[in-house]
């Protein structure tokens, strides 16, 4: 809907508009001061060398050039992070959806189950990480304990170079209950008449899922895909608390590298440049998803298949 020009507005409408601007003013001030401002400052800092307490020194594009031509840890951390994103995002989407389908069943006490599955999403990341150290301990952990009952020798999990990354993925899956609630809202918005009509037509549950549930849930899936992907690129706590990036850099995520450069090596300019490269990578990934979404995202309120 087109906006009405200010000069043609009635006095009452103008007053309401002013009230609206006044209402959002605290948020705008907060955004400028605490989000947009620091973002712009960090962009400026990315062209400097800065050790926090001495004045920054302008180095132009040197930080970016070094990153792409002379920094093995940058490449390692990027590779590890991409591996994590590729492994974790599809799994989180699928498991979250599967959980939401279960939680959408019309059973007695379902609200209690929904609450229980949502609980991990409100727990502190550090506390959860410490709990998972115990759960996945090779000798004392409950997971390997259960595997041993079936005669399976469990892996070294966080302490094994090949299992460390899958362990972090597994740990993240534990908290898909938060995403499942969003799927659940999407599922409950699908008109029940569609299911009733398909039942009359003799559709099976599987056909209902493929032809009704999944297509009508694609906007929610798209939203989840974007947010989960961004979250995956920013993974930090698990590596910081549990693995410290090891063993053998198997969990040396990009944000951990950024953190070490900023707060251990006092290389704030380089860390800012690392931050902006991550912003650009994430933005490109999101843009690709937006561009391709027209082929698979269906909106109920639109006759078109495109976004």
């Amino acid at each position, binding site marked *: 809907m087109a906006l009405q020009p200010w000069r043609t507005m009635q006095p009452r409408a103008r007053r309401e508009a002013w009230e609206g601007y006044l209402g959002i003013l605290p948020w705008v001030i907060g955004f400028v001061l605490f989000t947009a401002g620091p973002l712009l400052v*960090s962009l400026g800092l990315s062209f400097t060398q800065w050790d926090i*307490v001495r004045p920054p020194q302008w180095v132009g594009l040197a930080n970016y050039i070094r990153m792409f031509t002379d920094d093995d840890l940058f490449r390692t951390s990027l590779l590890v992070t991409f591996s994590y994103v590729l492994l974790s995002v599809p799994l989180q989407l699928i498991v979250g959806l599967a959980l939401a389908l279960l939680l959408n069943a019309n059973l007695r006490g379902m609200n209690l189950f929904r609450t229980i599955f949502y609980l991990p999403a409100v727990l502190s990341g550090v506390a959860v990480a410490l709990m998972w150290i115990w759960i996945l301990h*090779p000798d*004392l952990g409950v997971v390997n304990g259960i595997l041993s009952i079936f005669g399976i020798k469990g892996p070294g999990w966080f302490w094994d170079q090949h299992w460390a990354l899958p362990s972090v993925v597994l740990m993240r899956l534990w908290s898909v209950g938060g995403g499942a609630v969003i799927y659940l809202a999407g599922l409950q918005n699908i008109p029940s008449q569609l299911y009733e009509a398909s039942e009359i037509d003799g559709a099976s549950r599987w056909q209902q899922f493929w032809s009704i549930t999944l297509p009508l849930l694609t906007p929610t899936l798209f939203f989840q895909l*974007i*947010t989960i992907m961004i979250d995956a690129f920013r993974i930090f706590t698990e590596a910081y608390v549990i693995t410290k990036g090891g063993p053998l850099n198997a969990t040396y995520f990009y944000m951990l590298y950024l953190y070490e450069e900023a*707060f251990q090596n006092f290389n704030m300019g380089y860390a800012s440049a690392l*931050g902006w490269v991550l912003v650009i990578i994430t933005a490109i990934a999101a843009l690709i998803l*937006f561009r391709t979404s027209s082929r698979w995202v269906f909106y109920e309120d639109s006759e078109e298949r495109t976004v």
Partner: protein
Amino acid sequence: MKTTKVSRRQFLRMNALAATGVVLAACGASSAPQTGQSSSTAEPSSAAASAATALSVPAVAKPATITWWSVPSEEYNEEAQRKMLAAFEKANPNIKVNLTVLPADGYDQKMTTALGANQGAPDVAFFWNSAWLPQALDLEPLIKAENFDKSQYIKGFWDTRTQFKGTTVGLPLGVGANFVLYNKKTFDDMKVSYPDMNLTPEQWLQLTPKLTDPSKKRWGGDRPRGPFRAIWFNLGARPFSADSKTVSGYLNGDASVKAYTWLWDLINTNSTPTAADLDVLGTAGTGPVDLFMAGRLAMATLNQGHMLNAVSANVPFGLAREPGTGSNGSWVNAWSNTISVWKGSKEPEAAWTFLRFWGGPEGQKFLMDNANLLPSIKPVLDQYSKANEDYAKTFFQILQDRQVAEVGNLPWMSPVLRAAKPVWDKVMANQIKRDQIKAELDAVVPAAQKALDDARQRLG
């Protein structure tokens, strides 16, 4: 009122776009190693002993108000610090000190912000982060003007905690150190003789299997928590040359290979807790004190706080240096907190007057008597109530050793060790053969040299 309808599609797109926009997560600052370059000081003098008992600080003539930021800790709780402040203000009625006791978690961030902005920083505070030292006041003119006795401090702590770019920027408050605690009962049970305080690496390798008892879920000894700590230095290993310019021949030198090989041998005794065990059963960052106290670890590298816990819990224990040969001198992983005056202080003289009370004999003795601080001033430390106990005598001796921090506090140590981390990880995970250690160290030398060059260029 006119409204613009937002469709579900638009809403979801807007949300996705908004989420895309902000990617950078805010990361909290961490406690970083403290920096200090080595300089020489005289040996502790007995003359300082008499100073320890008297309030010798001359009063500042004109009235002044200064700010002091501190944190509470086991060594100096808030109540003790406030009492100490009252004693100072009584002796110096012209100086008013506004104390802010910050939670330890938020202290680093607040200091970094204030010092980075160059405004709002306290006149006197802990400067334990090496990145802050350029903002600390050069104390040398004040020290010289008042003939302040530097020699009263234990040399290692003065050298490693107060020097920056060839001048004095702080005083060392309190002391701490790592050493080996061994459980005498376990030694008795296994009919093994106690080690003397100069434990060797070979003895450690021999003792750990003898003291291990799988039926009691007991390990003989723990494993080091990182390379280039006391044992590495005791064996003569260094990560780079004394002038901090060269890695080759040091990180991969004979002494370093020997230290990593010793670690390899220790891991292969299967008598130490695994890395996973230490992560789960150890106490974060401070060593496996709980395992030691529970009698499940016969020898452990712990600190003076753990030692006092063992005393309280009546655990029969003995003390030894971290393993070494003696031929390279005895090195200790020790620490103290640097306290400084901010360069931007409007009242530097009053701030110095308070600083030298807090970090001098009066303040440190007060905090020793009224809290749990172990002072960095030897004559005051000698007045410790348990100073005549065997463990205290051994601990005081260890405090005189050369400190790993002489090298460890250099700001390029961390990036160099980061580059060398793959070797550590492989040895800890038992992924390489004993004779591959040299080749593995050779392989990380180029990355370590690059990290050293880069850090020196930025922070040197």
